[in-house]
């Protein structure tokens, strides 16, 4: 079963499901996987911080998406101490003209939160100036990335 995770959304799933999203540039795709409970979640985030803009619920923000992923995974039986994180995206498609490198800010925000919450970051494919499509197997925890060469 393949489930598409749309921009700004979080999807939590269990064994046997593949979560995917396409055309990721400066956006940051976050996967969390509990190998013992066989539960996983994918977020397709757009911007680093909702909290700093007075937003408290939108999962298009890295900080709020991670909170939502953890809450939903724990509700299904996952444990935060078991979670393994992977990051994909955070690119800068037009590196010569950006007031702010949103991609890099997204990545930095996620890493800061993982460190604070004690979540292990076990893989990343971030930065650069190319788009990526991502598939996350909630059976194995594996992440497959497609790029244009």
């Amino acid at each position: 079963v393949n489930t598409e995770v749309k921009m700004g959304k979080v999807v939590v799933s269990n064994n046997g499901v593949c979560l995917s999203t396409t055309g990721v540039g400066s956006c940051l795709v976050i996967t969390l996987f509990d190998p013992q409970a066989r539960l996983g979640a994918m977020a397709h985030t757009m911007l680093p911080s909702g909290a700093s803009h007075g937003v408290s619920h939108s999962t298009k923000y890295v900080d709020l998406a991670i909170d939502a992923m953890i809450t939903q995974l724990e509700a299904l039986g996952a444990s935060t101490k078991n979670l393994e994180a992977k990051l994909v995206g955070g690119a800068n498609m037009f590196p010569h003209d950006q007031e702010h490198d949103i991609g890099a800010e997204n990545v930095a925000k996620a890493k800061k939160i993982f460190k604070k919450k004690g979540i292990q970051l076990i893989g990343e494919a971030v930065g650069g100036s190319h788009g990526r499509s991502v598939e996350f197997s909630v059976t194995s925890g594996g992440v497959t990335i497609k790029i244009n060469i």
Partner: protein
Amino acid sequence: MWLQANKKGEKMKLEKLNQINKQAALSASAALSKLIGQDVSISMATVEVKKVEEVKPLIGAEEIVAGIYLPVTGAVKGATLLVFPKDSTFILCDLMMKRPVGTTRKLTELDESALKEVGNILSGNYFTALGNKLQIKIIEHIPNFSFDMFGAMATQVTNQFALKTDEALVLQVHFKFRSKEITGYMLLLFELEQIEAIVSALEKV
């Protein structure tokens, strides 16, 4: 949503935007024809105003496109993203570089430079027409180029405005060369206050 063609009163604003499109297309046609030494007819039509998160379905998120991104400042702060699908990009390069159609299989630096110039011409003439209509000054910046997944480019541009607005004006751009016709899209994004100011100004002109 700040413009909807089916709403009373909004049709007039769209008509005014289409007048700007026509003026911009006319000037851009003349400039591009002069640049490449053959007649090119460009038309620009307002497709719709869409939420930025809904722009992607116009072209597949994974579809490889040429994207020319051009920020603007001055009386309005915003950007345009001109997009050509891969095959159209190769044909456009052949026509601009005076090669037989079907020659281009990979873009060279010269091709990228030519495509940036197309971006300059289209965006430049659009903002000149818009600026003249509204009597405001709009300053264009240097174009940036990418040849990659459409979704990756579109979201990066829209993410810059996501905190302030969630809508983009989408134009379809059609090029008619002697032997070929090419279609692309131009996305225009402005900060929310700017959109409101533009719409308000359009009501008065």
